[in-house]
């Protein structure tokens, strides 16, 4: 391959990687939100991505509903799924904030159970088939300097950046966001200030559900809808959160983009099946050198100091 061709191949890989990485970032963002609020690793989060992609197939591909209407329905469904995750796997265990060790053991089992149960239900309902979904933007690539840029990847990246900015702005500038940060920083103190920590956690689950469902909607024209989507998404979403840093929203974005770009760049030079290996080697390397992740805050896993998990 000539150097000019190699450059255009690399750039094409980077643009597609930034697009798919945006979806991983949304999943990582949701995982970070829940972890920061409650100290829980929600292993069922990727199931909501699956739900979002299958719902998009049904609403947009089969019923031909307008995409914005599908977005609204999918987002609402994601919020409901978040509530279900909270009540089904966490809420009844969660008596008081701060019992991190016992909470973590139990919620690892319950969120895993929820993930497996949901996957089985989806497989029974939809089978192991793959359902293509047409793109919600033009599928014609724009040639920029010899590099084909697909509009869908640009949309995914822009939407994700907007969401991260919105969440950061909300948590830093709004009163409600302030209470959220109080809960993240010191849940017992927040309780004493009259903040309902359980409600904050519940809302975190719901918001994370919305993010995951929207992630599934955004990426489904690229991946198609299938029950196997959840598996790969879950792994890469976790990697995005861990590389970016626990408790950091910007970190989840950067982590997701890094994972997406690595996944896309590997086939340029190596066997495509090395991509997961390289991603996880990077994850291990980051955690060894910097346990709190690239942008994580101080604490055992980079979350707020009271959320030691």
């Amino acid at each position, binding site marked *: *391959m*000539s150097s000019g*061709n*190699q450059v*255009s*191949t690399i750039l*094409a*890989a980077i643009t*597609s990687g930034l697009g*798919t990485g945006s979806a991983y970032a949304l999943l990582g963002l949701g995982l970070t939100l829940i972890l920061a609020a409650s100290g829980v690793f929600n292993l069922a989060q990727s199931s909501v991505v699956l739900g979002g992609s299958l719902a998009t197939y049904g609403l947009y591909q089969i019923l031909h509903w307008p995409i914005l209407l599908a977005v609204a329905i999918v987002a609402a469904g994601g919020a409901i799924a978040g509530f279900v995750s909270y009540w*089904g*796997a966490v809420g*009844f*265990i969660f008596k008081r904030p701060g019992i991190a060790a016992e909470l973590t053991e*139990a919620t690892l*089992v*319950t969120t*895993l*159970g*929820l993930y*497996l*149960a949901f996957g*089985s*239900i989806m*497989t*029974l309902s939809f*089978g*192991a*088939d*793959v359902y*293509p979904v047409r793109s919600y933007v033009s*599928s*014609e*690539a724009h*040639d920029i300097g010899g590099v*084909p840029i*697909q509009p869908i990847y640009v949309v995914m990246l822009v939407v994700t950046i907007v969401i991260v900015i919105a969440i950061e702005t909300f948590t830093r500038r709004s009163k409600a966001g302030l209470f959220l940060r109080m809960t993240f920083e010191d849940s017992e103190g927040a309780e004493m200030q009259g903040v309902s920590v359980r409600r904050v956690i519940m809302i975190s689950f719901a918001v994370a559900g919305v993010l995951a469902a929207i992630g599934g909607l955004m990426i489904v024209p*690229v*991946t*198609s809808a299938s029950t*196997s989507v959840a598996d790969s998404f879950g792994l890469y979403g976790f990697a995005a959160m861990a590389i970016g840093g626990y408790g950091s929203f910007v970190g989840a974005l950067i982590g997701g983009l890094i994972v997406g770009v690595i996944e*896309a*760049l590997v*086939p*340029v030079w190596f*066997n*495509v*099946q090395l991509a997961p290996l390289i991603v996880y080697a990077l994850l291990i390397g980051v955690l060894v050198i910097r346990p709190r992740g690239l942008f994580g805050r101080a604490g055992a896993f980079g979350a707020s100091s009271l959320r030691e998990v």
Partner: protein
Amino acid sequence: MRHSHVGASVGVVIVAFAVAACSSAGTSSNNAADTVQVCADVSLSGAYAAVDVPVLAGLKATVKDVNAAGGLLGHQVALHYLDDHSDATRVPAIAQELFTKYKCLVVFANNSGTITGALVPFASRAKVISTSAVPTPALSVAKDYPYNFVLNATNPQQAAAFLAAAKRVGAKKVGLLYDNNTATTALMQTVRSALTSGGLDAVDAEGVDSTATNLTVQAVKLKNAGADTVIVQANPVLLLTAQRALASVNWAGVKIISSPNAVNAQTLGSVPSSIAANYYAMGYRGNLSSSVGGGIPQTFANSVASFGKVVNLNLSAQGHDYFAVVFWGAEQAKSLDPSKIAKVLESNGSKPLPNDTLYVEPSPPGYTSTEHSMAKADLSKYWSLLRPGKADQNGQFNGEPLTVG
């Protein structure tokens, strides 16, 4: 309280596992002691479902027609099948159930290289005749698998067909994009050699995982390698991904030839408009509508239709042939002994089978005592070149016959 809730969640998981573990299964109604049992391991969901669902319809139609004509050597025939969900790890359990519960005369051993490769050893050990379209050379060696018979072109024969198709569309520089499982990789190596020997330039080859969801990089690499034509050998699901990727990289005028195993209404009906004009699907003669050269009997199409909408008549006809060749062998041997049937199939040589024996496979198949592949069969009139568009009521397409050699 906490432990009971955790226990309840674990219980949900266990129930979910138990329900999900149940495979689809089917059996026809004849189960008398003197009934001939025939079996099938089919993928009714997942990556290979698009192929096996119509094949199963053909198997059912064949059993129905044989029973209506008086059965096999006077015995009614009963079909038993299990769904492997396109997952080769399910094969041991499927083999256990099919071969111990029923004394199968013949088993259709799926059309996926991975699954067939897993099932054939079990069938051979159980002395069950197995038939499939997987041309893996190792599975055709009679000494190792004396009861396995392949009904499909060998890799060199497929490669010759790809070369003919490439020349037919005016290819000069060809790129290959394919599922990197072992069988397909071997086939693509043979195709690459055939292209080079045939005077074309094989400029690049990109193997991808069968579950890959984004092939943009591979499409760009093929484009940058200077290919004017891309041959895509993939399962139907991967082919859809490849179509999207090739359409997304602004590759004006690229010709695309997809493989016969991925011909179905979805892959030919949803070709992106930017690549449709130069898109060709290499198929079999049976994929052609009767108006342009297809020759599958309408009586068989009617029989398949009695089991539901005809999705892909060619694949259903292949299903017919997987059983029909063994039934013919049994009638010639006047026996249901697998060894005697295998002997008949091996010793037929160059004698054509009766016209109504095989609908789409070449006759004679050309098996020998050492080789159970179709290496010696005449496949010159076996192929077609199909065009994108809607399938007709029999799941067949517009296109033209492709003569090879």
